[in-house]
């Protein structure tokens, strides 16, 4: 038996330990947050606030879903917020003129196009992902500013607003949208060739290449998908807030990265999953909700996001290796 455990690949042991640590620590975080907020704020435990938190969490999930897939390949997409902002502007301008289908199509197309360019830059351009997508961040921001010229678009069609602000069987529509997307992406990651390729590339890119996997083609699809999902998230976001301006995407990157880190997906790739991101989104929504209920200045939010990123990544790194140390 001891020989068998010895022969167990180190990677699998690490993955199991990482998983155990992540699940336990996140459960603990949710319990602590709920208990503390319930004590500190009387409004916290109300149905209205609960739907509020869930709606916030689902928007957060939509914004971090594409990023999760990119991070699983060992890459990063810093452009998601900016792409979301650009897609939102294009789409809102068409929607406010009454072109429903074109409005929706433009957001998805803009996201897909920007994401595909990211993918091409990372694979055939051989540019490190954080530089390629950081460049794209500024390009998308710039194009957003150019397009909007500092204006704000209000008032989107009622029919369109349903996907962001509507209710279905008493549940906010964004929550249902997020749950459907969660299911689809989970099946994609666990049960399809593309999904397994994403884990394989993240786990060991050389091995993936040497085993004949079309790594570049898969990576292009992954970055394109991330862009497409940003475009999709843009639709839900503008439907919710009923407006768009060029600065919409500016403050979305830090929360999205915080969500993925909270979800326990390893930034080195290959470990984690989309379900973790859903949990991360719930924790982040609880934190933001708590800050609002307790009247914390919004100025603190980016700092809190930064601290969450640092703490959750550090905890996973230290906590994960502690567990591995104990076992051996």
């Amino acid at each position, binding site marked *: 038996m001891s020989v068998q455990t010895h022969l167990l690949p180190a990677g699998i042991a690490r993955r199991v330990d990482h998983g155990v640590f992540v699940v336990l620590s996140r459960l603990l975080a949710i319990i602590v947050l709920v208990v503390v907020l319930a004590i500190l704020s009387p409004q916290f435990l109300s149905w209205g606030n609960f739907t509020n938190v869930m709606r916030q969490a689902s928007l957060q999930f939509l914004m971090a879903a594409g990023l999760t897939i990119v991070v699983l390949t060992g890459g*990063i997409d*810093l452009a998601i917020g900016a792409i979301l902002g650009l897609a939102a502007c294009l789409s809102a301008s068409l929607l406010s003129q009454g072109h429903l289908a074109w409005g929706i199509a433009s957001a998805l197309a803009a996201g897909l196009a920007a994401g595909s360019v990211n993918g091409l*830059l990372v694979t055939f*351009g*051989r*540019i*490190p992902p*954080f*530089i*390629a997508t*950081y*460049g*794209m*961040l*500024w*390009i998308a*921001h*710039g*194009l957003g*500013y*150019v397009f909007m*010229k500092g204006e704000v678009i209000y008032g989107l069609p009622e029919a369109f607003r349903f996907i962001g602000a509507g209710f279905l069987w008493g549940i906010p529509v964004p929550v249902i949208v997020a749950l459907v997307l969660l299911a689809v992406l989970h099946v994609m990651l666990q049960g399809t060739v593309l999904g397994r390729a994403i884990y394989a590339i993240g786990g060991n890119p050389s091995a993936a290449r040497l085993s004949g996997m079309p790594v570049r083609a898969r990576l292009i699809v992954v970055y394109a998908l991330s862009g497409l999902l940003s475009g999709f998230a843009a639709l839900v976001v503008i439907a919710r807030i009923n407006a768009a301006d060029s600065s919409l995407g500016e403050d979305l*990157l*830090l929360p999205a*990265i915080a969500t993925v*880190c909270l979800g326990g997906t390893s*930034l*080195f790739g290959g470990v984690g999953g989309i379900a973790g991101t859903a949990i991360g989104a719930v924790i982040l929504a609880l934190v933001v909700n708590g800050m609002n209920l307790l009247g914390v*200045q919004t*100025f*603190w*939010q*980016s*700092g*809190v*996001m*930064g*601290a969450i*990123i*640092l703490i959750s*990544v*550090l905890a996973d*790194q*230290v906590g994960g290796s502690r567990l591995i140390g104990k076992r051996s």
Partner: protein
Amino acid sequence: MAETALHPQLIQRSATLDLVKKAPGAFYLLALMGVVLTTWTPGFFTAANLTNVALQVAVLTIVALGMTLVILTEGIDLSLGPMLGLCGVAASLMVIAGYPLIAAVAAAIGIGAALGLLNGSLIAVAGMPPFIVTLGTFGIAQSIATVLTGGDSVVRLPGYYRWFNDGIFLAIPVPIWATAAVFAVTWILLYQTKFGRYVFAIGGNRQALKLAGTRVSRYHIAVYVYAGVLTAIASFIMTARMNAAHPTIGVGLEFDAIAAVILGGTSFEKGHGGIAGTIVGALAVGVLRNGLNLLGVGTEWQVAIVGVVIITAVGLDSIRGLNL
């Protein structure tokens, strides 16, 4: 494998072609901008405008010099922009509150060093990815700066503060002196000390350093601390030039600094490059921005254009690395 099997004739190239290939992208960008601007805008090649460019570029150059060391270690520091905002705000608030200038300067440098220490420790000791760590401190620095000022600008600075930008010493403006001094110190640190050799080695072959039993983490941390200190120094010039401090004044500066470093020929891989190229790179980015202003290109387009330039520069750099 394929690289080593090249036929010798394929490897032989003319010296000129080699030179053209090896010169950092900044030279081409500078040359291009020089030609375009001198032909199209009469205002460019005037002493007044060129001095203006030099002064504008001082802040960027100082930050980019710190960024060069970080990138040489195969790292990145996205927090330098907001850090500049925070240092500027902290020093200004202290000066207005009546503290002596020297205390305010020391506090700002302390903040830069402390954030650098946090960045460096998490990267070198905890082994976290640099862009994630510095994105985290990006948020933290931004938040603290905004909270300190309530989101407003810090104005009504005492007149003497403007010396950091307007002062002239031996017929040369203070920002130029500061840039020269920072360059000299960085040059000595990088090429004449053990610290410098480790900077190249950390980027070049960290594994070998570890296997050789060298304890590199403190040098690795020192790189981020140094970048933080330089950013604090740059913040004084920036605040003096604006005659105000604003929490978000530095946002985007980290991006220009990365562009300057890459255009200057420093590579993200294997510790290739140096600080001389960064000076040219910063000048190129400065001239590009100045030129786009003179040509009447709006800030919105400028943001996008610099994004394209940085991606192109890194792309060309990595294609050059292929040894075609």
